[in-house]
């Protein structure tokens, strides 16, 4: 994986990981640590996903390790002493307080949740690569669903240029999303 591809992957996935961690109840700094940990693990394992793997395995893996990191956080909080023997530790484990039970973490940190969030992350990435006017032409016609000729008049562009802007942004978005592991 080249550095550019890595940066893009980070740009897309790190906000999602961060959001997962925060919405699971982690404080800001711990959520940032989770992002770093998960992406560190991702970096180390990226070779496994660059090979021909069924699509989606990367995403479920990402969700799985994020869930684990979030659980680690709660466990650390409840597990003051490490290294204690098994039985005691097990008993303690059973009492681990967590604002999120296991099942709800499975729901909130999931591939489905990831897939739901990917388009908006891709939007952010593509936005950064676009001329502001191109972006505006796309946004107003596509997201705000306004008439292309109105948008063209507002932005001082001709109609074909507005369509070209919309077409170009959407093409990039599709490509950005389809390139993701």
């Amino acid at each position, binding site marked *: *994986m*080249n*550095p550019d591809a*890595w*940066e893009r992957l980070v*740009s897309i996935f*790190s*906000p999602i990981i*961060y*959001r997962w961690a925060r919405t699971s109840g982690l404080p*800001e*700094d711990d*959520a*940032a640590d989770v*992002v*770093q940990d998960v*992406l*560190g693990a991702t*970096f*180390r394992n990226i*070779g*496994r996903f660059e*090979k*021909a793997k069924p699509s989606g*395995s990367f995403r479920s*893996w990402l969700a*799985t*390790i994020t869930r684990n990191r979030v*659980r*680690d956080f709660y*466990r650390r909080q409840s597990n003051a002493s*490490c*290294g*204690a*023997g*098994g*039985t005691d*530790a*097990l008993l303690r*484990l059973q009492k681990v307080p967590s604002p999120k039970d296991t099942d709800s973490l499975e729901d909130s940190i999931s591939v489905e949740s990831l897939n739901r969030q990917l388009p*908006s992350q891709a*939007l952010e990435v593509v936005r950064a690569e676009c001329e502001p006017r191109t972006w505006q032409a796309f946004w107003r016609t*596509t*997201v705000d669903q306004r*008439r*292309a*000729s109105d948008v063209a008049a507002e932005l001082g562009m*001709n*109609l*074909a*240029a507005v*369509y*070209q802007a*919309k*077409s*170009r*942004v*959407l*093409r990039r978005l*599709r490509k950005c999303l389809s390139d993701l592991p």
Partner: protein
Amino acid sequence: MIATCPEITRLHDYALGKLTEQESDEIFGHLSNCQLCQKCLEDSDPAQDSFLAHLQDVSAADPLSAESAFGRATTRAKDPTFLLELPGSTSNAGSIGWQREVGSAPLPAIIGEYQIDRLLGQGGMGVVYLGHHTKLGRAVALKVLAGHRLADPDMHERFASEMRAVGKLSHPNIVVAHDAREIDGMAVLVTEYIDGLTVGDILKRVGRLSLPNAAKIAHDVASALSAIDQASLIHRDIKPSNIMVSRCGQVKLLDLGLARLQSNDDLTLERTVTGRALGTVDYIAPEQITHGRQVDIRADIYSLGCTLFKLLTGHGVFYQTQTMTIYSKMMAHVETPPPSLAQFIASAPEDLITLVNKMLEKDPNRRPQTPEEVVQRLAKLSEEADLTTLVEQATQADGTADPLGATSPALHLHSQSVSRSDWFRSSWLMWLVAAGFCGGFWSLGLALGWLSEVEILIRHSSGVETKLKVARGSVVTIDEFGHATVELPEPSATSSHSVDRPLSRNPLEGVWKFKGPGRFDGAYLILAPEQFAIWSGSDGAVARGNWRNQPNTTPPQLDLDVLEDGHVVPQLGIYETATVAGEPDPVGLTVWFNRPGQERLKRPTSESQRVELHRVDSTQLEPGRVPVLQPVWEIWQELSQQPAVEVDQLAPPTPPVGTSDRQVLPQTLEGVWK
């Protein structure tokens, strides 16, 4: 430009970004000049597709993304060297930022009690000045670490504690630290001044070193590492630019205690990925890449091996082409078998080749375990060293020598015959065992020996052979990543077998006879080597296992209390059962260690779920983590006593626990499991 108007559906595809760039440009060319198509397109309101619908759902800016922690996390994450907490850059790599900083800041005239005489150099870790103590007159080197670094109280404490530890060390091959303090928010390290050159500079000036000189430098650094190890410290950044040779030929190791400070350095954000760590990645141990924080002195031994390799050959271990990136180098340390020194130096003595090969082992357990061992093996080889002359020659050289010296170009060609995927494949047994043994959680694969067996010999592309005994009729599936799954056949007669070890590529890794009551008699426990080779046990043995979580120790230690005549057993939990239709008892188990910090989720309820779990285990694990664990608590009730593990090597002396302890485990287990 398209002469005839395109179909309206094609215009829609264009507007929705579904066409290729070239197709789109053609349509655009037409559209720009065709009022009719423009009107058609606008009036027909391109059909919504699911993708557009998604975008329209996108809500306003996410408030979480405005949090400062978020920005920090994502910025850091883009730099893989930061993610992996690699040590800092070399003096060559990260110097640009420093030059800027130095250029804009006036040279301080005085730092504490030290008068600054001149700038000695600047490197990844900071700026170094030559100075002298105003009262004692003693010449010192003052290393000023990054400004504002100590604003972070954690970093402040870390600096203080590292320096306290370093200050206690006294060894002829370690630069003496006189003082460490914070001045105007800058961490300043005052050390003895060495009049000489770094080994990195020497290499640049005179090219690769003679065998005795290289051996002598590595010998002395190993000796320094021995003292570092005895003080429970780790250097973490052994490389030529951190080793100095004085004019009198004394070898001095620099920058002890600084590597860890570097890793959280805010300045890293300003450095480019490639610029920052390229120098260091020539010498980094695989576990520093894969485990980050959890390394021990054996990582330094690896880095010293890389350094020795560089001194002897003039290039790094994974020197292949100029285009090798930081990524490929890091992956090579983790996955590519190193070339043998013999490929580059025909005259290298066998002892040296073997030693370097051992130091460069991926698995820390297969390296020399202590620096002392390296010291002893290098002693004889370095007898004819003459470092004084070497430094003299280097000082006189103009610094433009071919860094590879007069070596033949043929030396640069070495084959990397084993690719990454081969390595994955050869490590399949580790995966078979149900997952990463390194770090968070360990589990053991266990298959019962109740069937007549066949022996399978697996010859890995690396030349290593793995013998595996499985029940007749089993299906062993090895996937594209080298992960193996064994599906057991329908049970037939019950029998018990023992299997010789080792059965895998790692001589310590093996399938061990597992003894327990009832149906579990004669089962096999498949173990990873590093952690478990020390066990001993036999029938009826009971012991307690305790985790010792030590920072800087990898893998985590499992303390085993040995009971009675050398019998030990970890506290086992049953992670997963393998059941066969029509059989009331499970035919296979995966067991795990009872350890704080592990996860329990669902239990498998069907064979297909079990298979799925195996698949998940072996394909989706991050090394060192087991995301999905399936303890099946009830099974313990069938095990009226604890199982024991039979091994053929006695544990290192751990104090035997009295016989009364024998009762402890079953009793407490009863409380839990019933």
